[in-house]
């Protein structure tokens, strides 16, 4: 079996579901003949027809909004926003309608929609092309927010997202779209949307991250291991609803935790994870849970983007600070 990249795994999952379920439609800007600007829909229109894989006019509010109407009539739209930076005009329709239709109709209608978007920085892209604002979506009741971090997880989680009866915001870390290859059998096996993935076992510190940042997080874990520090690396993958219990299980063991994310720090999802660890495992913490994140400023144009993104050095330093922490007394 050939090894495939993350973006190819996305294509494979889309093809699998287009093939399996005629209610599934793919739509977005340039998803047709062009196969998407990242080629995530490459070949799909040719294979399934322009009715199943549709180029839309250039209007994100429209894309977000028609998906609601389509879903209310039993279709399963998989809508692509070309970049996460262009999802915002769709936010009203996602927040006010997609996320609420089931609830406000008391279960009469629902929105089995997947809103996909390439996400994050690090590819020398132009302005507004490097957003990671998952926290905005993770705050919205009624949504699921999913970020895959490997080809296999991209495949399994996207299958699950498409089959899920409720709306899912599926954010694809484009920096690692082609970073690694993996054998991913096209077996239609979905992965659960309510479980964290443990990517590495270790007893000294829990490192939590998702998406592209896991690359640096795993490298940091490797570096820490050279110094004899055992890191447990956890990928929540589904950021909302969050499987906090798997995280707590790990923190129970390590007593120390660092959250790494690319998004701006303030109000990022790291804060919620810190707060929930505090809720459930305060007594077990041997140091405050800390965060290594993007800065609280606008993602810079690409010349400076590597300063913005958490790198191995910052992650190792962050972990060190957690590991070296000792109570100053007080309690």
């Amino acid at each position, binding site marked *: 079996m050939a090894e495939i990249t993350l973006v190819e795994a996305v294509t494979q999952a889309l093809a699998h579901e287009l093939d399996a379920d005629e209610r599934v439609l793919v739509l977005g800007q340039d998803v047709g003949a062009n196969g998407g600007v990242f080629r995530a829909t490459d070949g799909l229109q040719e294979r399934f027809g322009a009715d199943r894989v549709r180029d839309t006019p250039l209007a994100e*509010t429209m894309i977000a909004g028609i998906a609601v*109407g389509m879903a209310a*009539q039993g279709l399963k739209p998989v809508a692509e926003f070309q970049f996460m930076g262009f999802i915002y005009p769709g936010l009203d329709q996602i927040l006010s*309608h997609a996320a609420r239709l089931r609830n406000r109709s008391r279960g*009469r209608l629902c929105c089995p929609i997947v809103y996909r978007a390439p996400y994050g920085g690090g590819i020398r892209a132009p302005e507004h092309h490097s957003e990671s604002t998952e926290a905005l979506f993770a705050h919205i009741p009624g949504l699921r927010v999913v970020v895959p971090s490997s080809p296999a997880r991209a495949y399994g989680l996207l299958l699950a997202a498409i089959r899920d*009866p409720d709306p899912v915001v599926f954010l694809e870390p484009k920096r690692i779209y082609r970073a690694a290859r993996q054998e991913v059998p096209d077996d239609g096996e979905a992965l659960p949307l309510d479980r964290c993935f443990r990517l590495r076992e270790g007893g000294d510190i829990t490192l939590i991250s998702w998406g592209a940042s896991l690359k640096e997080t795993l490298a940091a874990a490797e570096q820490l291991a050279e110094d004899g520090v055992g890191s447990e690396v956890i990928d929540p993958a589904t950021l909302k609803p969050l499987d906090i219990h798997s995280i707590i299980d790990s923190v129970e063991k390590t007593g120390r935790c660092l959250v790494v994310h690319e998004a701006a720090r303030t109000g990022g999802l790291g804060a919620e994870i810190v707060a929930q660890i505090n809720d459930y495992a305060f007594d077990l913490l041997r140091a405050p849970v800390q965060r290594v994140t993007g800065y609280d400023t606008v993602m810079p144009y690409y010349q400076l983007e590597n300063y913005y993104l958490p790198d191995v050095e910052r992650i190792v330093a962050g972990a060190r600070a957690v590991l070296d922490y000792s109570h100053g007394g007080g309690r």
Partner: protein
Amino acid sequence: MHKPRMHLVASFDIAHLQYLDEQGRASQELPDFATPDTLQALYRQMALARLVDDRAVKLQRTGRLGTYPSTLGQEAIGVGTGSAMDSADIYCPYYRETGALLERGVDIEEILAIWGGDERGQCFQHAPEDLPLCVPIATQLLHAAGVGVALKYKNEHFDEPQRVAVASAGDGATSRGDFYEALNLAGVWQLPAVFVINNNQWAISVARSDQTASQTIAQKAVAAGIPGLQVDGNDVIAVRAAVADAVERARRGEGPTLIEALSYRLCDHTTADDAGRYRPAGELERAQKREPLARLAHYLESAGHWNEDAETELQRELAEILEREVKAYSSRSKDRPAAMFEHLYAELPEALYEQHDELAERGGDR
């Protein structure tokens, strides 16, 4: 500089449709559907809408209902639209909709429940595929476009008979991008969709002339390359004829239509509003002369199909229906607090168990 020579590349006309003039006289031969029975039925539904509105406002004034948007004076639009649809068609309503909802079979009790702060009103037991009433202005127009995509797709792929999506909105709503994006998509994808605009001349306190410089709302269809027309929105025959025609064309695969129904909001915007603050003196009185119920009654009377007795009998019958429904509304039990979690997702995620259980406890559910 002399004026340059320019070459004409496109031309557009916007036309207006009316059957009954302000005095209730036929201004042209009526359409085939306009039998005495049908016209009486339309009159009945408009009269019922008016009664419901009147009662709803009173219920609000006595604290038994929340904010309510009356359709007073605009009954012909909702009733005309609703009556032009097949029950299998899909309606995507905005919020000022009593007449249309009655036509769609929504219970009066449900309408009251919605404005009484109870999600269960949106269940639409007799219109199970219609979308719930929509508050965020113009957003429902995109839902209608999406429904149109699905209906067309299901017709082509699942051999479903072609159904049509019909949406409504106010004149103010036509200033929003959602309106335009919906029309544009409907045009380029030739969707089975009909967009009906209730141009009641006001968006709360903003007059139609402060909303847009376009001479008509109908001409906004030109931007999307779709047909647009104006109808006399106080003439239920015209509304029904125009919508029925658009629905049939959509059903035949000939694409979408924008219909501007000209009317007037003979009431405050909602029970929370006081139009006295902004409505120019005399405007209301002038508009009252054009209102749709008297107009149709005059026509029916002069044609010998209506009289005082019929009116009395109708009002008695409708009052009875209304009492029954208001009673049903008033005796509804409150929804359980934990219900706010029970339809959030198809299945409650583990992450929400604690919150759900806390709420169930507080609500005495367990």
